[in-house]
């Protein structure tokens, strides 16, 4: 089974997949950016604190001594309570002050800058004290008087940042499916809206057949590609219509024009024959030409009939026809032809199969199919005709066990004047129009004909016609409706 491919499904898949990618990228970027921002702002807070400590407390170290510094820091910043880490180291590397929780910090960095500014450029680092969480540490150098700077280090945990980031991640992950579902549904609806005119064009295009080439597709006045598409298709149908009418008119005109010369030929030849002044051989020649003239007459009639059917034969009167009776009566009438070739012809029909049809034309269908079957079934063969009724179709099957149709010929049997090599080899004579007439008549009735066959294994022609609802069923339906 081949799955119907729809633009809608393909576009939606594509759309959702790209949205997914975009969303993942966007989520990643947001996460990364947010993390960067939080770390930077933590570092800035730490830096600010280091400055404060240096400029308000450390600056008084020479006057008030180390104990003052320790007390002041404890009092103002309470590093243990706030999970801050504070450490001050003097230029010789001795620790002037350290909060209790800073004991695990790695040694202070060597400050490269030995210029004359009071404060040095800060140095930022990340640390993982043993069995503890991540820490951000900022170190600055601070000069008191001349000489090398003291080093003030302030650290803070990253745990808050990760809590915030986890929150963001949860939001993103929870939002993800909702987002995908919403966008898919939105895409589905929007695409449906955009593609609806295409669906309408498809439906209308399906309705257009050779019988109603005058129909046109709806043109949505949207000014977009869809409008241009239907306009272009309509122009194409117009060209087809013109070409087809031209061919049809040509066939009809040509057939008409052939009639008068044919009349003259036949008349003159018959006159010659009647006078009987010619030799036996000459008479035989004229008889042979007359036979051909008659065949030509039948071909002309057939072509005319078909071009009229294709033009939708407006005069064709349709009545309800008892299909089973029509088929079996015709088969009976054809039986002498079959018997003449010692071919058996059986008809089996289900009752109550009624179709709306032109009786003469429908009979022609049966006659042509049977004539064909008889022609190509050798002596002792068997032809079975079967009428059945499906739900809304009347089915006619004509099955024979004759020479069959070769694989190459099978697709062409309903074409006008098509002769397979098998037929040519058998020198069967006919108009070459029988089966294409069957095809045209059925088309004009909203039916169809199909063939199944294999070489030397017989053929089965299957005719399908819209079935008229049986009277009983119609009555029942009416009662139900009331």
């Amino acid at each position, binding site marked *: 089974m081949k799955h119907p491919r729809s633009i809608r499904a393909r576009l939606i898949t594509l759309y959702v997949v790209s949205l997914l990618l975009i969303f993942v990228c966007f989520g990643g970027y947001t996460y990364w950016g947010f993390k960067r921002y939080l770390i930077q702002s933590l570092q800035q807070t730490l830096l600010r604190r280091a400055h404060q400590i240096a400029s308000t407390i450390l600056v008084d170290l020479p006057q008030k001594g180390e104990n003052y510094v320790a007390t002041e820091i404890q009092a103002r910043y309470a590093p243990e309570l706030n999970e801050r880490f504070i450490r001050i180291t003097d230029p010789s590397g001795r620790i002037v002050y350290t909060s209790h929780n800073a004991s695990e910090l790695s040694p202070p960095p060597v400050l490269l800058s030995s210029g004359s500014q009071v404060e040095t450029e800060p140095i930022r680092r990340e640390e993982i004290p043993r069995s503890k969480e991540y820490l951000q540490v900022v170190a600055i150098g601070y000069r008191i008087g001349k000489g090398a700077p003291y080093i003030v280090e302030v650290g803070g945990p990253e745990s808050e940042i990760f809590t915030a980031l986890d929150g963001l991640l949860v939001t993103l992950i929870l939002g993800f499916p909702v987002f995908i579902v919403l966008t898919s549904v939105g895409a589905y609806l929007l695409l449906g809206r955009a593609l609806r005119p295409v669906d309408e064009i498809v439906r209308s295009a399906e309705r257009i057949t050779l019988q109603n080439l005058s129909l046109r597709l709806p043109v949505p006045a949207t000014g977009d590609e869809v409008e241009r598409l239907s306009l272009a298709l309509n122009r194409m149908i117009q060209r087809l219509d013109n070409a087809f009418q031209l061919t049809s008119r040509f066939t009809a005109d040509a057939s008409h024009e052939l009639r*008068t010369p044919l*009349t003259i030929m036949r*008349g003159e030849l*018959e006159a010659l024959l009647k006078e009987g002044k010619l030799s036996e051989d000459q008479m035989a020649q004229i008889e042979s*030409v*007359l036979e051909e*003239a008659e065949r030509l007459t039948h071909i002309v009639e057939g072509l005319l009939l078909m071009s009229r059917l294709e033009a939708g034969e407006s005069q064709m009167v349709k009545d309800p026809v008892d299909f089973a009776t029509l088929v079996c009566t015709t088969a009976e009438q054809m039986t002498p032809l079959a018997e003449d070739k010692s071919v058996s012809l059986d008809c089996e029909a289900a009752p109550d199969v009624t179709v709306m049809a032109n009786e003469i034309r429908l*009979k022609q269908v049966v006659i042509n199919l049977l004539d064909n079957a008889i022609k190509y079934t050798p002596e002792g063969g068997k032809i079975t005709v079967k009428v059945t009724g499906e739900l809304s179709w009347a089915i006619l099957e004509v099955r024979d066990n004759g020479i069959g149709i070769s694989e190459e010929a099978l697709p062409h049997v309903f074409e006008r004047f098509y002769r397979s090599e098998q037929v040519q080899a058998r020198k069967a004579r006919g*108009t070459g129009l029988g089966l294409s007439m069957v095809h045209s008549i059925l088309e004009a009735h909203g039916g169809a004909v199909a063939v199944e066959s294999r070489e030397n294994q017989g053929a089965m022609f299957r005719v399908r016609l819209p079935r008229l609802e049986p009277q009983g069923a119609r009555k029942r339906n009416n009662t139900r409706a009331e």
Partner: protein
Amino acid sequence: MRILLVEDEEKVSRFIVRGLKAEGYAVDAVSDGKTGQEYHSSYSYDLVLLDLNLPGITGTELLQHIRRGNTKVPVLILTARDGIADKVHNFESGADDYLTKPFSFAELLVRIKALLRRGPVDRSSVLRISDLELDRVAHQVRRQEKRIELTSKEFSLLEYLMVNTGRVLSRTMIIEHVWDQSFEGLTNIVDVYIRQLRKKVDETHEQKLIRTVRGVGYSIGLNGA
């Protein structure tokens, strides 16, 4: 018997005139509607053969003109048009018969004879040719007083041949009369029936009555005529 032929196609006109004269009819042939109208007003005809596609006055107009004169003259239309609407229209205008080109002369002749003998139609219940006898009422056929069993189709075929004894009937005509329009083109069914009929009627007898005219059709009669 005098026949007026209005036909603009010269060659068609020529073989019809020749054929009808050979059958012993007097024929006036004209090639346009106006002359046809004049001839019809000036002389009295037993039958008018009328082509529809005429220069000047069309065949249909001429037909209407003839009928306005309230003439009872039978009119046979010859035409290359065969749409049902055309046929209905012309029958309404008063045509008695309608023959579509291309027709065989034999067919034209049979139709002309049928129109001319319209008055006293041979309605006798028993048709006879030599020792062959067909009883239309009892649906029985005898030859040399011996009963021949025929199927109903075979009976209709023999009856049609015998009503037109001596005339050649084309397969198309036979199909139209004995079968129906849908069998048009299926002329081999006529051949099969004729063969069966011959087996039953002619085979055991010295004198053959059914004759084949190759390329034209069949006829029944004495001495093959």
